[in-house]
């Protein structure tokens, strides 16, 4: 390592601690006097709580306290909220049902928290949690969103009649209907987007510590955005005012969206710490994670795509029911609306688009953003129906896409988004070349000789990242602004700390963010440290999700670095008696351009702090902060092609090759970007082939509540991926970055399903395409 700037494929600085077992995750934290918590959870999908008897539990060995919902409410702890207001098309606000961190009189899904037990050991806490006697009066339950909307369905919240949270629309319905009516060909599909469980490998955890002497709380939590957690816990849950609450998200073992939200457990651990007088640690086991982490996706959609006689798209009409589970999670309302319907134009020029979205309560875990969040649902819809249309129209799927690509930018879609830059043909061409599309026919023949069905499928995704311009999202209902902050502290000897409101839970910020400063000032990357994840260290930040850390978080750093550079140049000019405009930075020195006069970086830093010889009126020090609010979303796009072989005897699908050609704009560290694509694609292949959360409709129980029944992608389920990038820089941020964190999970599911349906000759296939389903689909196709 040394000076490693933008574009360098530098190995990660943070790896050392992780590969030696020295990472510090919440469960690794030990605070003097710390005790352990277990939650009592509802075994029923829907029931009234008629009584809670904690007497037996309180008498168990090691038990320090048993606390339930009534005490929580008596102490004024608030209900959990959804922070994005959506209005129905009739103008009424969304119907938010009450969600108490500990249920008081009713439970609404299996896993709903009812009480907390604090004990000397985790084992004792669990023993006692089993001894808490909760009396339930069971109520009828509903787990399927379409069923929940039917007359006579069990009702979850008095606030939401018919379980309907909102009935929302986007686009011009009349124009879309008219264009559809005049279409030469209309392709129609019924599409399901399967419910997923995020499954970060580190289960969620919280350690709450109330310091009586200071009347101050500290919360160590597995969070992607500790500052938002502090804000929400202060402003809405009345845990403590912000100046009395410190939130620390140390090393966090993956998030994928599931660790954005503020969950009941961290609130309850903080409150319980004050109640019991001891620091309280809770760590989820995997089954708790399955039951209680926010799930993702779960859409039911009717979609129609109309074409004119020349195969140009004329109209897209979408009617979606989105399952939001038993309660509205923090950002649940924006996922099936502004992160979904706004992307329905895909990469195509479609003059008329209309989407209607109904969101629904069911007796299931809350559903919120999971890697991609709305954009995978949109992409799956478009890329499945475009592929299907190509088959119906008997034209090549690539050519049908090519014919309808948006080709000039900026491009205003009929669904809010204004695409700033892109070259969709470039990624399509790159992907087709990488996969050897032309040679597929021969490969299919070869496979046939081996008794295998080979298929190929593509998907051309677009997404909106870098969320987001604060005023824009504010006008759409967001309760927060989506800027980011940064502070660059140059120390007296020239080393640098960069404080950021972004949070790294696998993304490698400690390396990529450091590259910005190392390259700019010509100092070794080891001399740049990234500080994040602690509200006492970083003043305020909005955190990491929506592929925003690059486009927004790094842009804030760039702004702060600009200020530092400007001041450093002033100091250097003063020291060398030169004009500030003539100062350039090269290899760790500030030089007067065209001369051999120079002063090393560290001397400029030192001068800033000794303050013996600064320009008149200049304040000492070299530390600058910045807030960056993006001017627009960014629009990463690309083409993914999947080639599969299906074993017709068993229905098992093998992914033979998977090609990703992405346009992420400029790239800071290609190694890390490739890693993001690999991981995203694996999750997308997981959604397409393996993963599905399944509630038994009769019992309301989550049948896939462990790795015994929920299929996590394993190494032998996946191939090595062929990834490449094309680049149209984003014109809206200083680095030209678009974001890369979610693309893989967005673009891959339709590519996989398009490939399997191509292989088996039956388009009627839902995700996950398990061997059993594919086998049945093959049999159904041969019967016709």
């Amino acid at each position, binding site marked *: 390592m040394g000076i490693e700037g933008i574009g360098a494929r530098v190995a990660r600085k943070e790896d050392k601690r992780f590969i030696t077992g020295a990472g510090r995750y919440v469960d690794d934290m030990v605070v003097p006097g710390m005790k352990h918590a277990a939650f009592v959870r509802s075994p029923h999908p829907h029931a009234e709580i008629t009584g809670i008897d904690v007497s037996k539990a309180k008498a168990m060995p090691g038990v320090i306290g048993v606390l339930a919902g009534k005490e929580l409410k008596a102490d004024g702890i608030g209900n959990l909220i959804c922070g994005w207001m959506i209005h129905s098309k009739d103008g009424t606000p969304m119907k938010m049902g009450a969600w108490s961190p500990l249920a008081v009189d009713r439970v609404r899904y299996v896993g709903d928290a009812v009480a907390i037990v604090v004990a000397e050991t985790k084992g004792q806490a669990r023993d006692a949690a089993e001894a808490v006697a909760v009396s339930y009066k069971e109520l009828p339950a509903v787990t399927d969103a379409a069923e929940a909307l039917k007359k006579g369905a069990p009702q979850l919240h008095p606030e939401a009649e018919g379980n309907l949270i909102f009935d929302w629309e986007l686009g011009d319905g009349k124009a879309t209907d008219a264009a559809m009516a005049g279409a030469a060909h209309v392709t129609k599909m019924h599409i399901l987007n399967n419910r997923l469980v995020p499954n970060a490998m580190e289960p969620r955890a919280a350690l709450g510590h109330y310091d009586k002497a200071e009347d101050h709380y500290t919360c160590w939590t597995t969070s992607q955005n500790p500052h938002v957690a502090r804000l929400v816990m202060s402003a809405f849950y009345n845990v403590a005012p912000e100046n009395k609450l410190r939130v620390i998200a140390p090393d966090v073992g993956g998030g994928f969206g599931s660790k954005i939200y503020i969950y009941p457990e961290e609130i309850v651990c903080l409150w319980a710490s004050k109640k019991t007088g001891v620091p309280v640690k809770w760590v989820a086991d995997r089954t708790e994670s399955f039951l209680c982490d926010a799930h993702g996706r779960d859409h039911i959609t009717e979609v129609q795509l109309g074409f004119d006689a020349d195969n140009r798209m004329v109209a897209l009409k979408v009617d979606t029911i989105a399952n939001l589970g038993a309660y509205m999670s923090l950002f649940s309302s924006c996922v099936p609306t502004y992160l979904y319907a706004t992307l329905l134009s895909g990469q195509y020029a479609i003059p008329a688009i209309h989407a209607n979205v109904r969101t629904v309560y069911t007796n299931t875990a809350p559903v919120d953003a999971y890697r991609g969040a709305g954009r995978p649902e949109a992409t799956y819809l478009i890329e499945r129906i475009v592929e299907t249309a190509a088959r119906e129209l008997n034209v090549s799927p690539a050519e049908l896409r090519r014919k309808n690509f948006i080709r000039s930018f900026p491009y205003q879609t009929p669904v809010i988004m204004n695409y700033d830059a892109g070259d969709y043909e470039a990624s399509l061409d790159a992907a087709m070349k990488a996969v050897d599309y032309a040679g597929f026919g021969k490969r299919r023949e070869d496979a046939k000789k081996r008794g295998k069905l080979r298929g190929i499928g593509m998907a051309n995704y677009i997404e909106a990242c870098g969320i987001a311009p604060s005023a824009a999202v504010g006008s759409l209902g967001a309760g927060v602004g989506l800027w980011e902050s940064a502070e660059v502290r140059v120390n007296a000897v020239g080393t640098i700390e960069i404080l950021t409101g972004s949070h790294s839970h696998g993304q490698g910020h400690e390396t990529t963010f450091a590259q910005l400063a190392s390259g700019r000032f010509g100092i070794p990357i080891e001399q740049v440290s990234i500080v994040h994840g602690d509200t006492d260290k970083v003043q305020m930040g909005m955190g990491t999700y929506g592929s925003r850390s690059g486009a927004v978080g790094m842009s804030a750093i760039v702004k702060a670095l600009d200020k530092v550079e400007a001041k450093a140049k002033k100091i250097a000019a003063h020291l060398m008696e030169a004009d500030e405009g003539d100062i350039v930075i090269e290899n760790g020195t500030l030089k007067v351009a065209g001369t051999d006069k120079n002063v090393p970086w560290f001397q400029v830093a030192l001068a800033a702090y000794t303050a013996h010889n600064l320009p008149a009126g200049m304040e000492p020090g070299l530390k600058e902060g910045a807030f960056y609010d993006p001017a627009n979303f960014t629009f990463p796009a690309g083409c993914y092609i999947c080639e599969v072989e299906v074993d017709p005897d068993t229905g098992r699908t093998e992914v033979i090759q998977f090609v990703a050609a992405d346009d992420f704009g400029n790239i800071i560290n290609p190694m890390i970007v490739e890693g993001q694509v690999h991981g995203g694609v694996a999750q997308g292949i997981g959604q397409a082939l393996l993963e599905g959360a399944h509630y038994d409709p009769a019992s309301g129980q989550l049948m896939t509540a462990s790795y015994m029944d929920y299929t996590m992608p394993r190494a032998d*389920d996946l191939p090595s991926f062929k990834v490449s990038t094309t680049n149209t820089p984003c014109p809206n941020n200083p680095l030209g970055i678009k974001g890369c964190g979610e693309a893989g999970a967005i673009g891959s599911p339709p590519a996989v399903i398009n490939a399997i349906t191509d292989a088996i000759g039956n388009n009627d296939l839902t995700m996950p395409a398990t*061997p059993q389903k594919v086998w049945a689909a093959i049999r159904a196709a041969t019967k016709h």
Partner: protein
Amino acid sequence: MYSVNYHRATSVADAASKAKGEAKYLAGGMTLIPTMKQRLAQPGDVIDLMHIGELKGIKVEGKVVTIGAGTTHAEVAASAAIKAVCPALCHLASHIGDPHVRHRGTIGGSIANNDPAADYPAAMLALDATIATNKRKIPAGDFFTGLFETALEEGEIVTAVTFVAPDKAGYEKFPNPASRYAMTGVFVVLDGGSVRAAVTGAGETGVFRSVEIENALAGKFEASALDAVTVPADGLMSDMHASADYRANLVKVMAKRAVGRAKG
């Protein structure tokens, strides 16, 4: 996990003497410990059998194979002596669980537990093995009596399994995509003209011999002999991963593949 007392046995007799009440024998623990962790089993005492020398080891004399109950899957998978006479068993052992599980899990533990999706029971039944315990010898055909049920009596300990290596044997399984246990596994044996085919992972009452497969293979021990066979779905398990019909199909397909890979 509920509270439990741990006891380490030094011999089979010592283990048997320690067994009382709700005590459970603990071999590799690859099923028992996870079950206890999930609070689905609550033995007050566990008796560790892994330090008993007399339960260890593999002996092959001519075609007679004896495997000590405490022999791990990894040891069976890697045994050159077994491979020389019955490679199908090594193949089977090398595909149980994952490498870490194979380092701990034992043949005795697997058959005593008789998980309906475990691999070894199919091999024992098809190989017509004899299960030796500290009290008696039990033919495999009598040993596996139902889901997680065996002929073992209270306190009885499996000490070894013995079988005569057949002319040919083959095993093929289709794993459950999530758990990787057998969703259907078929062990086929050709021995002196007689054919045995045992199926695991599919039967509602656990491992069973498939009459249809055996009859079809009796004339000709070749995969093609199974082309026309229909395996009935009656009596097969149905769950969210695989319907009985799908499992019936898998029985046939896995049987064909097991025959295809069968070796002596």
